[in-house]
């Protein structure tokens, strides 16, 4: 049988007829993207509430009797795990990956729509399993989001019964869901691009999501492997990770296991995970900046190479999370060197964003504000990363609030700003409605200034030596009163930022029902998703014929052209000349 390229196949899709097949058991990548996004944001709100409770305890100790030390650790653990995996990974790849890949590549759908649908429902299952752990006896695990053994499954840690088990099972189920989605994203990018869409004509959003998916497919197995081994240690008494130790006055049943083995496996996943979240953010923010600066992205090839290079490097830096676990000094030297080398491609990207802004025709609308905000927060978070990448600096700072400030800046605030920017940017395409600019700007400024008021003082607390992970600081004389005042102010800022997010939900929900009807291409963007025949695009995306691509994604303000953008599907002879 002769092989027919996907782009040349007729429309073989069976369109759904009932409400259930259209919106619930949907195989349409756009509906699945929205399902993923709503679930991820909902579980993210839970994690945000948990962080608020943590801040209440830290800002006003001895005030809230309903927060005890065990609960505090449970909040810390669940907040971290939910934010990193169930919100950021799922929203960038399951949400934006699903929505953007087929539309930006000019495909009708993902190549395996049924598996794509399964991916979402299995993801939802993993979220439900995780949420169930709040309601089991003993509550969720309080082992910290890194789940280090032996304490993760040793007596004395909250949630060592059902809590840790549900966490491990939920992670396993999540990885199955991610693998099903990831196979789709990679194969769709490789096999289902439309005519003319060469790899180097793909928008950087697709490059970022694609590379992050490849990283995820190779790195998530490390989490799966460690989860399987820890489950066995926990349930049937093997000793992969669990050493012999006296716990609560009793000798445990294990012998000889290696907790450091777990750390290696965990961080072999954990460090690429940072880039699984960061690379899609890099890609999306590049597109936002280029579109709203009405200028082609500066150094497109370098941007692509930097994404690929960062992805490759991310596999050989994992042990920089383990300096304090003790290691051969030569290893420390090696991992410090590779860690600092990552700064090179990352700095290239930051320079290129700034150079794209340089003398651009900047449109300071809401998506652009979030994109520029990202450049600030990411640079600040990245620079403190240079501190912590060095062994001698990391050792004293590792267990302090400096690290909390660093990673929240670089992989908390920064990707979240991109997510908000991306939601505002594609809102007119996804819903067909415009959002309120005023509310969006309030949301941006309060969030940006608020998060700075939260995380900048944390670096100062870190320099003072305030330890992280502590429930309260009673009897720690070295902590000055100013640190306590800073904690109060951080808590107030955190509550304000949390409340500010209500503006976002009001804006989205109000605009969805009462927003002005959106133009099909309100930003004057070049990429294919803005050129669909209907707005929002229908099942199958492109009507009878797939678009043909004639140019790269960044033909903005081309000299001699009448309009300041030329969509990717406009052939050279059809470009209107300026008069």
């Amino acid at each position, binding site marked *: 049988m002769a092989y027919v390229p996907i782009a040349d196949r007729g429309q073989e899709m069976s369109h759904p007829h009932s409400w259930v097949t259209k919106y619930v058991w949907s195989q349409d990548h756009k509906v699945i993207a929205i399902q993923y996004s709503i679930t991820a944001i909902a579980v993210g709100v839970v994690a945000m509430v948990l962080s608020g409770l943590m801040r209440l305890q830290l800002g006003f100790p001895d005030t809230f009797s309903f927060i005890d030390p065990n609960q505090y650790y449970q909040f810390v653990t669940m907040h971290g795990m939910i934010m990193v995996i169930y919100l950021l990974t799922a929203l960038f790849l399951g949400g934006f990956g699903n929505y953007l890949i087929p539309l930006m590549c000019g495909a009708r759908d993902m190549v395996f729509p049924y598996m794509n649908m399964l991916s979402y429902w299995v993801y939802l299952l993993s979220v439900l399993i995780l949420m169930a752990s709040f309601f089991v006896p003993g509550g969720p695990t309080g082992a910290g989001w890194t789940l280090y053994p032996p304490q993760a499954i040793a007596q004395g840690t909250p949630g060592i019964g059902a809590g840790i088990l549900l966490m491990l099972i939920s992670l396993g189920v999540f990885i199955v869901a991610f693998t099903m989605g990831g196979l789709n994203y990679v194969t769709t990018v*490789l096999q289902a691009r439309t*005519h*003319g869409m060469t790899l*180097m004509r793909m928008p950087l959003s697709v490059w970022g999501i694609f590379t992050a998916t490849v990283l995820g497919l*190779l790195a998530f197995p490390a989490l799966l492997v460690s989860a399987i081994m820890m489950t066995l240690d926990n349930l049937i008494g093997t000793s992969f990770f669990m050493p012999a130790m006296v716990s609560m006055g009793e000798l445990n049943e294990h012998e000889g296991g290696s907790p450091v083995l777990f750390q290696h496996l965990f961080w072999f996943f954990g460090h690429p995970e940072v880039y699984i979240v960061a690379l899609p953010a890099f890609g999306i923010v590049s597109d936002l900046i280029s579109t709203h600066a009405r200028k082609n992205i500066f150094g497109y*090839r370098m941007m692509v190479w930097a994404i690929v290079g960062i992805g490759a490097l991310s596999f050989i830096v994992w042990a920089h999370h383990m300096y304090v676990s003790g290691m051969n000094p030569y290893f420390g030297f090696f991992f410090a060197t590779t860690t600092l080398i990552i700064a090179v491609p990352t700095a290239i990207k930051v320079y290129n964003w700034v150079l794209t802004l340089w003398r651009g025709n900047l449109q300071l609308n809401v998506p652009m504000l979030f994109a520029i905000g990202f450049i600030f927060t990411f640079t600040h978070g990245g620079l403190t990363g240079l501190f912590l990448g060095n062994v001698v600096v990391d050792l004293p700072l590792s267990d302090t609030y400096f690290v909390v400030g660093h990673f929240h800046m670089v992989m908390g605030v920064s990707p979240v700003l991109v997510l908000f920017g991306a939601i505002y940017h594609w809102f007119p395409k996804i819903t067909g409605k415009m959002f309120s600019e005023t509310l969006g700007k309030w949301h941006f400024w309060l969030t940006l200034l608020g998060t700075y008021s939260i995380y900048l003082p944390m670096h100062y607390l870190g320099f003072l030596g305030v330890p992280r992970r502590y429930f309260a600081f009673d009897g720690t004389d070295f902590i000055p009163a100013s640190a306590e005042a800073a904690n109060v102010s951080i808590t107030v800022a955190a509550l304000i930022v949390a409340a500010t997010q209500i503006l976002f939900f009001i804006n989205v929900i109000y605009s969805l029902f009462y927003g002005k009807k959106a133009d099909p291409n309100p930003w004057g963007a070049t990429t294919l998703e803005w050129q669909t025949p209907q707005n929002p695009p229908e099942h199958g995306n492109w009507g009878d014929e797939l678009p043909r691509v004639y*140019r790269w994604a960044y033909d903005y303000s081309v000299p001699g052209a009448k309009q300041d953008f030329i969509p990717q599907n406009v052939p050279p002879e059809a470009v209107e000349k300026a008069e």
Partner: protein
Amino acid sequence: METILLFIAAAIVTCLTYLWRNQITEKPWLTAGAIEDDASGVSDEIDPAARTGLMVFLAVVTSVFALFISAYFLRMELNDWRPLPEPGLLWVNTLLLFIGSFGMQAAWNAARREDKRGIQNGLLIAGAFTLAFIGGQLWAWQLLSDSGYFVYSNPANAFFFVFTGLHAIHLLGGLWVWLTTTHRLWSGAHLETVGLRVELCKTYWHYLLIVWLVLFALLLST
């Protein structure tokens, strides 16, 4: 961690070679216009998506096994490690899996000849011997447990059970596809639609045979 790093290095080289062959050095801002012969944008790649999907999936599975093997080497260095005697039955099981993989190859060869009877015979051999292999592995578990080598009594035992169990789970997943393919074939599906499935099954079975040979060699040599 050498094993997983070797695999990641191989994966990175593969990705970079692919990107290089697909003009990652092109300057797209200079080349506006239609592009000739660019079926689905992937100019020199004419594989169906399912084949690419399977290859990516096999990369994920390799990552899982490479990580387990890395963990095996790291854990082996600690002084409580006591190697266990591998039952001789494993040699018989290996032969069974060989025949199963051979059956898949025969089915695929028959599919290329469009010989329905040949596909049926090949699939039957593959399924029967793979099931026999899994049964044999369970028997090996039983033998070990009977002689006091429980999963929890030593990390070497634990790794043995995890390796064989994980491998068998992957085979069971393959058998599910085998079952649906066989069902389709017997209920009169068109040969062309079955052909791709048989081909993918063949690749998967050969892959799992190689994984088993690597694991078996590792268990024997340590």
